[in-house]
């Protein structure tokens, strides 16, 4: 089946990475580098543009990496932005309508999408690849329609603007930057640790061969549902962070196009490597900044990237790097 060949080629790419003596070291170095760069950025410049780009990057990183968790189990969800929207609306309506304190609103941003995922997960995750994609497409559309049609509560298509900041000190872009930084660092560390753990190995086993994993005593459906719930909760928090950052939400920000963007980031970077998701985010949040004012062209380029990567390089940029390394290694072998 095509999925198996795809994932096996990706895992070959992965083993190619591993064969480099210090594969783990490379990843750790990348993580360390990114942490230092992002932690130190405000010390270099606190220009409005840099701070807002950095904050956007980090929020999108949480979203993309949480989708990466779902993709690792072998399912591509097209409803992820909708869950992000659930979190955003939960936090914003929590603070404005129910006057929840901010920490509780953030908790709601995690719990509401997670609860939705807990209800839908056991039903959806039974479906095989293509049906899952189709259903999540519809689920995402339904959630967006709820945002649009529940006018009295969500503000309908106009959305909600002038969202008040919870604490005065977050007014400063640098403060909000570090606030988001804390969440991002935590999420990244959590996901990286989770994927290294035994659960992570179960996830990979489930993707590679569902039934074999089941036979080896992995509770396949429970693991998938648990991952789905965690991922949807995480993206909900990302949604809330972005809502209080832009201070405006509307249904179009959580439409299928946004879900697609998240998928693009994951796939172009490399579908079955966490590093892939991170590289994808860097690529696709910074690239559009050079194409400001050409929003349509941006989307066209995104689309073409998806086509090219899926046709020629299903393992993404990570696979390309691995191939180059192998090439260099064989060259050296031939010389020596």
């Amino acid at each position, binding site marked *: 089946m*095509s999925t198996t060949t795809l994932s096996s080629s990706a895992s070959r790419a992965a083993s190619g990475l591993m064969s480099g003596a210090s594969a783990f070291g490379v990843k750790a170095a990348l993580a360390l580098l990114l942490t230092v760069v992002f932690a130190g950025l405000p010390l270099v410049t606190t220009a409005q543009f840099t701070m807002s780009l950095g904050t956007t990057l980090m929020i999108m990183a949480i979203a993309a990496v949480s989708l990466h968790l779902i993709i690792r189990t072998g399912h591509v969800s097209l409803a992820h932005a909708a869950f992000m929207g659930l979190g955003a609306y939960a936090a914003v309506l929590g603070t404005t309508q129910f006057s929840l304190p901010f920490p509780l609103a953030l908790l709601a941003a995690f719990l509401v999408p997670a609860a939705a995922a807990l209800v839908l997960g056991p039903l959806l995750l039974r479906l095989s690849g293509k*049906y899952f994609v189709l259903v999540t497409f519809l689920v995402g559309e339904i959630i967006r329609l709820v945002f649009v049609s529940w006018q009295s509560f969500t503000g309908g298509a106009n959305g909600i603007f002038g969202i008040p900041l919870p604490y005065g000190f977050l007014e400063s872009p640098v403060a909000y930057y570090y606030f988001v930084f804390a969440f991002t660092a935590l999420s990244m560390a959590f996901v990286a640790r989770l994927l290294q753990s035994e659960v992570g190995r179960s996830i990979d086993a489930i993707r590679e061969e569902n039934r074999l994993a089941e036979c080896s005593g992995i509770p396949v459906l429970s693991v998938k549902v648990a991952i789905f719930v965690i991922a949807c909760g995480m993206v909900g928090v990302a949604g809330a962070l972005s809502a209080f950052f832009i201070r405006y939400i509307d249904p179009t920000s959580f439409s299928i196009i946004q879900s697609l963007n998240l998928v693009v980031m994951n796939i172009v970077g490399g579908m079955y490597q966490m590093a892939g998701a991170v590289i994808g985010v860097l690529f696709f949040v910074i690239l559009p900044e050079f194409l400001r004012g050409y929003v349509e062209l941006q989307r066209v380029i995104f689309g073409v990237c998806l*086509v090219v990567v899926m046709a020629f390089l299903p393992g993404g940029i990570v696979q390309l790097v691995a191939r180059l390394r192998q090439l260099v290694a064989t060259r050296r072998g031939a010389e020596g």
Partner: protein
Amino acid sequence: MFTAPILGQILVTGISLSAIYILVSLGFTLLFGIMRVVNFAHGAFAMLGGYALFYIYGEWEVPYLLAAPLAALTVAFGSLVLERLVFRWFYQKMFQSMIGLLGLDMAIMFTAVMIWEPHERLVPAPISTVFQVGPLFISGNKLVVIGVAAITLVAFYVFTHFTRYGLAMRATAQDVEMAEVQAVNTDRVYVLSFLIAIFMAALAGGFYAQTYVLSPFMGERVLMMAFIAVILGGMGSIPGVALGGLILGLSESFLGTFYGGTTSVFIIFGAVILLLIFRPWGLLGTPET
């Protein structure tokens, strides 16, 4: 509320909607059944069909019965470039095709935004007469849509069942390798099926743009409806598509009239999700082994 004239009216509207949905989803299911490609860009081709009809019929005023097939043919043959550049890489690769063609959909849609601006346009209706049959008022438009769609579907049936190429197509759908062993040129079958599928999508797109409104984003909704019809009937099953399209068109017309557009979308989507969960192979499909 549920009087005979109203129900009759709903029936006519429903059938003309069904005709559009069946045309779109037939192409979609053809690509899936023969090439194992999940064409997420199908709605984009319908949208292109809408624009082709807008120019050929609306601007250049070619007679309608010539303009509609001409527009669809233009799109179908123009798209052969995409068959060569994009689709060919994805044949028999279901998963990659899904994601890659989502990308193609996005690329076509936003190229359309750049060329034609995002605002909505109207494609003029072919005839403005309204026929009165007893208590029923039937717009000539809908009859034209139903008529052209019916002719296309009959032609498709005759082609697949009574010609050599039709036989080759059905053989390829059943088993690519066996078909090749029997000296079927599968490459040619692929191109042919692609042409037929895109022709039907573009034709339906023209009708759709006429019924509702033409914009670069109209493809999304068409795509969603094709999904639903195909899922209802069962992926890859041709009688399933006919049944799914009919159910979808009639229920949209019925629910939309009595309970409003949003409610009808919620009910239809909800029903489809339930069906997918309990019977993912659809009403007339067969479960995969």
